[in-house]
């Protein structure tokens, strides 16, 4: 049963991920990405990481992807404009990755790492609480650094956006 569910989610993720770059209409690409985010959230749920699943949907599907859609619709991109002569750059990156993947499949025994295998926490414990405690004790410093970086990025985005209208005394 668990194998079947995983297979379904993994299959849909793979197909929709390919569709995101293969579809000609950018709006359909965004929708395909939306379906992919949903299935990634589904994978999290099968791993008893409900909190991550909800955050995945709220942050990616609910906020970031809506902005993508916003931009795609506003730009009204001509369908062929997206395909610049960049495919060979992509190939340059992808071929080594593919080779690495093949090597991994061939060499590794595909043993699930001990960290992920058994759901040590079990379905009963509060997943959100566990994440909170880990974030604010073990990983407190990286957490704070990450939030600081995000703040800097936010300020930077505002400064960049404001520069255009700076002349008019805004």
């Amino acid at each position, binding site marked *: 049963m668990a194998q079947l569910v995983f297979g379904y989610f993994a299959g849909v993720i793979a197909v929709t991920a390919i569709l995101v770059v293969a579809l000609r209409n950018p*709006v359909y690409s965004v*929708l395909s990405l*939306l379906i992919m985010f949903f299935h990634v959230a589904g994978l999290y749920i099968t791993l008893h990481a*409900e*909190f991550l*699943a*909800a*955050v995945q*949907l*709220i942050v990616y*599907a*609910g*906020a970031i992807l*809506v*902005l993508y*859609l*916003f931009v795609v*619709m*506003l730009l009204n991109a001509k369908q062929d404009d997206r395909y610049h002569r960049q495919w060979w750059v992509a190939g340059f990156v992808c071929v080594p990755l593919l080779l690495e993947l093949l090597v991994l499949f061939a060499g590794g025994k595909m043993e699930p790492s001990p960290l992920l295998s058994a759901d040590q926490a079990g379905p009963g414990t*509060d*997943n*959100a609480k566990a994440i909170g405690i880990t974030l604010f004790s073990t990983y407190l410093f990286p957490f704070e650094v990450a939030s600081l970086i995000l703040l800097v990025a936010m300020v930077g985005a505002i400064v960049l956006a404001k520069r255009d209208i700076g002349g008019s005394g805004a």
Partner: protein
Amino acid sequence: MTELGLRFILSLTQIAVVVLIVIVTVLILTLAERKVLGWMQDRMGPMEVGPYGILQPFADAIKLFFKEDIVPAGANKFLFTAAPLLALIPAFIGFAVIPWGPDWTVELNGIVYKPFVISDINIGILYILAFASLGAYGIILGGWASNSKYSLLGGLRSAAQVISYELNVGLAIIGVIILAGSLSLVQITNAQSGWFWHWYLFAFPAPQIFAFVVYVISSVAETNRVPFDLPEAESELVAGFFTEYSGLRFAFFYLAEYANMILVSCIAAAMFLGGWNAPYPGTILDLLGFPSLAWIENTMWFAAKTYFFLFLFFWLRATLPRLRYDQLMRFGWKVMLPIALANIVVTSIAVYLFPNS
């Protein structure tokens, strides 16, 4: 019958009942809105269909059902069809974690289930937020697929508005989550039992009054209601994102809007006003010797609180003029957001100082 099958049937029954209740409530609301608006403007409201106009919702439904279904020329047919469904599903799916009555467990053939909540998941409120944020897709795509400038403008406005105000909704309820120490709506409601000053609106050590005000205003904005109905502003955008929609597809958008209103009202009742808890400890029916009927009193309290918020929606609509778009954005980001953030800080400090209250 296998255990899985029985569980499946139980869940389906619960879902069917909840969906039925929501749809009936929507029918009531369409009439109630016009009646309340009528009374507030010193007129009668609909009076023709049935005694006192009470059959008007059915007349509306039949009319929408038989109207011609028009797809505008140049519209993207697939997305034009999908958009109303994309708006409707997120509006209904959130009801799965709303606790309608007391947190009882019933055992049937060895299967333990809770009769008054479809699914008590430990991230209940996040689940609702996650799906509520998807409601914007239906609106944006509907606006875009219609191939109309009015619709596109309405859809874009809605995108910006929903994202901005969703943030405030999320931040406003964090105070309650800090107090309750749980994300499950069932546990949040359980924690508010007793006298009404245990409701998180008034609760010691950090009354969530400011968060409550932010939540109510933001949820009005999130459901695109007056005075925040810019995505469908009739006087500027004809009807915004559903200008081109007719018949059943229009009805779907309409249904989604009202279902969203009911959903945010249920959340407000559950998180700030104690949900199904009466303002006094226990229930009167329990004292009178009918403990097995106590759930009626509890669900009635929940309904009363929810309808109070729904009435508030109508009241606002009858009272306030529409905001201008830049006012809307400034209000959201420069007034509501700081209040919500300050509330989180104050609540955290208060809970830290009085950890056991």
